[in-house]
């Protein structure tokens, strides 16, 4: 029997929320002003995808999107460590962007065939919006592929990207990136639900204003 759709939705939503949160931190400090604007749009899109997925899940779980996004404990998030890493240098940031976008394409393509029509529909919408993200990621990848900083960052983050996907989707990711699948031992601690320390730190900052008022306060 397939898992309740809320589970699939929360995995997607938590990935996009946490990644979007980290990427929104570049607003104002990206390498060029033009890139700053473009990158911020991508971060906003990710959060928008998260919101849409949370809304669907919230309907099933009898809550609302904001409560799912902010009011769970860090341990309850269903995101993968790739998105939880706090990367404040451009090489790592753009390497992650490229790796995540490629992995996300594999994941979303699979979700387009989801037995649940609403999930499939949401995946189709996300897929269409991410055409821009893919173009952007490819553009940077092309430009920086020979830059040692970028290559090293990709190497470092590659196991995290692999671990983000269920096993059956990993070969497709390897094909698309042209990278070899790492041995399972290198994927330890990087799998979905295995959180890294940065997640709790991020959650603290992300929820500090919200927690300063009683639950249900309006903002």
């Amino acid at each position, binding site marked *: 029997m397939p898992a309740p759709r809320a589970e699939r939705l929360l995995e997607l939503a938590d990935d996009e929320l946490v990644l979007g949160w980290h990427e929104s931190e570049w607003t104002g400090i990206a390498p060029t002003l*033009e*890139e700053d604007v*473009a990158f911020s749009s991508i971060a906003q899109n990710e959060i928008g995808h998260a919101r849409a997925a949370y809304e669907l899940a919230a309907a099933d779980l009898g809550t609302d999107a904001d409560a799912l996004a902010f009011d769970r404990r860090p341990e309850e998030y269903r995101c993968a460590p790739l998105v939880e890493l706090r990367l404040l240098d451009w090489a790592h940031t753009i390497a992650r962007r490229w790796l995540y976008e490629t992995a996300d394409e594999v994941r979303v393509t699979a979700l387009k065939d989801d037995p649940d029509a609403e999930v499939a529909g949401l995946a189709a919408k996300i897929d269409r919006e991410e055409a821009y993200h893919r173009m952007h990621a490819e*553009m940077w990848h092309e*430009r920086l592929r020979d830059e040692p900083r970028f290559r090293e960052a990709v190497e470092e983050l590659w196991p995290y990207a692999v671990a983000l996907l269920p096993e059956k989707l990993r070969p497709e990711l390897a094909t698309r990136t042209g990278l070899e699948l790492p041995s399972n031992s290198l994927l330890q601690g990087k799998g979905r639900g295995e959180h890294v320390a940065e997640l709790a730190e991020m959650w603290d900052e992300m929820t500090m204003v919200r927690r300063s008022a009683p639950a249900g306060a309006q903002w």
Partner: protein
Amino acid sequence: MIWEVFRCERKGQPFEHAGSVVAPDGEFAEAWAREQYGRRGESVALWLVPRDAIRPVTDWADEFDLKYRRVDGYSIKARLKEARERAGAAG
């Protein structure tokens, strides 16, 4: 490179110069112009042109009185008044 951005606000409208982005090639120019000039839905289309590809034209000679080519070269008020008066007298 400087890329000039022309935007079309709604289908059927002319492309108007909107600004410019600094980008190394057309791909980056597109990625960046899309968001700078379209993220709030303000454009349905863009033309991106390297500044060097634009040929500016800014001066014309106007030595002789060529009023017949312009609207202000025609002053019909006085004659129209006269024609109307004549037609009124005849009718």
